[in-house]
């Protein structure tokens, strides 16, 4: 592996020269194996695959050398950040061809080395099945797959490309070019101008103009400005920031360094969610490396600039994604938000001016400085410029991490990139913006995805979680889920949020249990209104959105639960019954797994479920291999896919 000389860089020029030198050296590399080490792929054994590759390369060293491949000289093998298509993991790509292997197991490493590396043959079973897309067949390169070809990666530009633990890798990909440009050619004012011109808006949720925020902090003339990077990604179903921090920590840091230069900040924090230990590890490695490289600390690149970045691990509180709560947390206090009538750019951390941006926002900054505000602003639409990363999850075929220019429609994202709904079931709703967002129904599929359009429709851009739901998702249950989530995460400071959430949950619970009454919906609506206008912080103010948006678009489902005591999705346990149909072969597996012995029958004949004993746990359905367990609600069979 090519490494630096260990001495700090004395000037921006030296840094750029070094990057150029690495690039020249790397021209010799003929083949690169990239093992995806995103959370999904690691969970499926990516680390073992990486080890297996290392040992296979060693044991085939002679043959490889004969083929002109030598590890660390002409052949490179590395772990990268999340490649995006998590559902097909573990993923291995071979560069420069872009060969894309999915579902790789450690034992496949041998095959790949022997077949692809030595004989230029593809390992067919590992190739990606295009299905009905692009006329079917198998994709040889990831660029052939719509999931990738329709994306534009800005914030994720290096994720899945670089080895996050390797500084040289990052330099070779053009890292710190923007920072060098900023400190050597631009005034702080010019940096802010560029950021403002680019139209970059905060990627954390609210979408406040980043340039304007920075300018605001600059106007408050104080000795010290704090810089905070918010990596407390708490939205369930969102993991873009995690992927960036784990897969491309240097870009986050570079963004922060440019911001620090523009604002004259000397101290910065990255607040990382405590569930992300790998992100902490990679960021810490990167920070240490930057200190030895003279890019952090005193007299950065000989310019006299000082910056120290510290990592602070969150304590596991969703509310700490709220900026004022986050700052309390950094002060070592309970993460209770403060009222925002005094803006944090004036009085934030330790009551000093503070600029807080989200991970993705900072990551976009180097790209803007490097390629220009015009380039960034040319993407997107209206007042939402550039691209946005989303985590596309739920009942969609290709779950994973994507990035598209703002303004793409939901349909393009879900059907073209995401490949549609699992089992081609009907689409019911898409939930965006996490617990603060809302659910949009099928007739909103052609809405362009940008900050303002989504909020007008009752949802929210949020941090970028996009959860797709099919007809087997109960909207009342989804609303209840989010309220329950928020109950666990509310800080409990103000009354509408603390007491209101509990009451809304009680009412929703009543409805899902079939005990709903007339007037319950109106009660919920009244309560939601007060929560929305009278809560202290953004968490409380937006807490009712999952309820109000489902009430707006799926009111009939609520009414069905209340009037007919029916859950059409077959989800609410009190409103459904399990029933065995004639496909039953009498294999007895369900009876053996039933925790309440509600299933009886004679072997090899049809079994039956005693509705009195059944607790609707769903185990029978999940273990049945013959799809012989149906779900009934009311008189209708609303059968549901096996969970597994």
């Amino acid at each position, binding site marked *: 592996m090519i490494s630096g000389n260990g001495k700090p860089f004395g000037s921006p020029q030296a840094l750029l020269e070094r990057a150029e030198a690495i690039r020249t050296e790397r021209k010799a590399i003929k083949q690169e194996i990239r093992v995806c080490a995103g959370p*999904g792929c690691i*969970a499926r054994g990516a680390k073992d695959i990486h080890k297996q590759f290392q040992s296979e390369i060693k044991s085939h060293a002679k043959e490889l050398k004969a083929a002109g491949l030598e590890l660390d000289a002409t052949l490179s093998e590395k772990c990268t950040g999340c490649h995006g298509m998590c559902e097909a993991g573990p993923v291995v790509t071979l560069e420069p061809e872009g060969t894309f292997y999915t579902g790789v197991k450690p034992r496949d490493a041998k095959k790949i080395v022997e077949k692809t590396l030595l004989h230029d043959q593809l390992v067919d079973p590992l190739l990606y099945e295009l299905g009905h897309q692009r006329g079917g067949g198998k994709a040889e390169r990831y660029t052939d797959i719509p999931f990738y070809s329709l994306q534009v990666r800005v914030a994720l530009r290096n994720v899945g490309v670089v080895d996050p633990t390797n500084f040289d890798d990052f330099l070779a990909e053009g890292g710190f070019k923007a920072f060098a440009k900023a400190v050597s050619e631009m005034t702080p004012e010019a940096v802010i101008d560029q950021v403002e011109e680019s139209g970059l808006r905060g990627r954390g949720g609210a979408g406040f103009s980043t340039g304007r925020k920075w300018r605001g902090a600059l106007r408050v003339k104080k000795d010290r400005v704090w810089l905070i990077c918010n990596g407390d990604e708490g939205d369930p179903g969102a993991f873009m920031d995690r992927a960036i921090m784990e897969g491309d920590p240097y870009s986050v840091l570079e963004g922060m360094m440019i911001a620090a230069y523009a604002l004259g900040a000397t101290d910065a924090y990255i607040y990382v969610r405590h*569930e992300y230990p790998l992100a902490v590890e990679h960021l810490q490695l990167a920070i240490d490396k930057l200190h030895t490289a003279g890019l952090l600390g005193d007299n950065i690149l000989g310019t006299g600039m000082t910056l120290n970045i510290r990592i602070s691990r969150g*304590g596991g509180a969703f509310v700490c994604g709220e900026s004022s709560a986050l700052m309390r947390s950094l002060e070592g206090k309970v993460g209770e938000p403060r009222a925002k009538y005094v803006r944090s750019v004036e009085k934030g951390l330790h009551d000093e001016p503070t600029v807080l941006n989200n991970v993705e926002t900072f990551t976009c900054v180097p790209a803007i400085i490097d390629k220009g505000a015009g380039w960034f602003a040319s993407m997107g639409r209206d007042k939402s410029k550039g691209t946005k990363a989303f*985590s596309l*999850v739920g009942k969609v075929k290709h*779950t994973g991490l994507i990035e598209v220019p703002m303004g793409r429609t939901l349909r393009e994202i879900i059907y073209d990139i995401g490949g549609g709904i699992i089992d081609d079931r009907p689409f019911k709703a898409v939930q965006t913006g*996490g617990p603060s967002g809302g659910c949009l129904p099928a007739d909103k599929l052609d809405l362009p995805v940008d900050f303002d359009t989504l909020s007008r429709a009752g949802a929210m851009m949020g941090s970028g979680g996009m959860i797709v739901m099919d007809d087997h998702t109960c909207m009342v249950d989804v609303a209840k889920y989010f309220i329950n989530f928020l109950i666990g995460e509310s800080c409990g400071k103000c009354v509408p949020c603390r007491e209101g959430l509990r009451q809304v949950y009680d009412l929703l619970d009543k409805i899902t249990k079939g005990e709903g009454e007339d007037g319950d919906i109106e009660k919920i609506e009244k309560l939601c209104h007060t929560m929305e206008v009278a809560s202290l912080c953004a968490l409380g103010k937006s807490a009712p959105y999952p309820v109000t948006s489902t009430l707006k678009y799926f009111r009939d489902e609520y009414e069905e639960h209340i009037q007919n005591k029916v859950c059409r999705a077959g989800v609410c346990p009190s409103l459904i019954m399990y029933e065995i149909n004639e496909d039953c072969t009498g294999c007895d597996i369900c009876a053996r797994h039933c925790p309440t012995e509600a299933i009886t029958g004679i072997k090899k004949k049809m079994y039956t479920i005693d509705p009195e004993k059944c607790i609707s746990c769903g185990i029978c359905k999940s273990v049945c291999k013959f799809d012989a367990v149906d779900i009934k609600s009311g008189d209708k069979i609303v059968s549901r896919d096996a*969970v597994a």
Partner: protein
Amino acid sequence: MSPRRAKKTDVDLDNTEALEPSAGDTGAKAPPRPNKSRPSDLSDEERAADEILAHYPLAEPSLIMVLQELNDHYQWLPPKALLRVSEKLGVPFGKVQGVATFYKAFSLEPKGKKTVKVCLGTACHVRGAGMLVDELKRSLKVEPGHGMSEDGDYSLETVNCVGACAMAPVVMVGDNYYANMAPGNIGKMLKKEKPA
């Protein structure tokens, strides 16, 4: 100065025994009390706390980081260690306790040998994670976030999103991920993970 106003020190009239401060109570700062416990008198928890505290500035902003490390060390926060942290950082114990109970990363009761974490992210929820929690509650006889199973092997926790939504629903035992779980597989998983 007007004659009607007296300075507070003016009470110290030479001829007023009644108002004279008693010896040893002259308002001068009391000499620093010797540290009441020598290192050897410290309990294990206090020593562990001291070791961790040595890496941080002794001020309130360090609190959460110190508690994180303590929690990593013990898997929970022993009261003695918390008292020590409160004393050393100069943060009132009430506040320390408030922080320790506010953040989910901290546990105030001992944990089982292994912690089963069920992801309750939205993606996992819509794919049926709730049923997994119910099944685990039944088979381990524990409540999420509290206590441990009778044999002390497992604690149960629910987490909001482990960021592995593609494999939903996900259950984590220690560092191992179990993807695409169903209630029917829980028993098998627990058997496989059972600590020696």
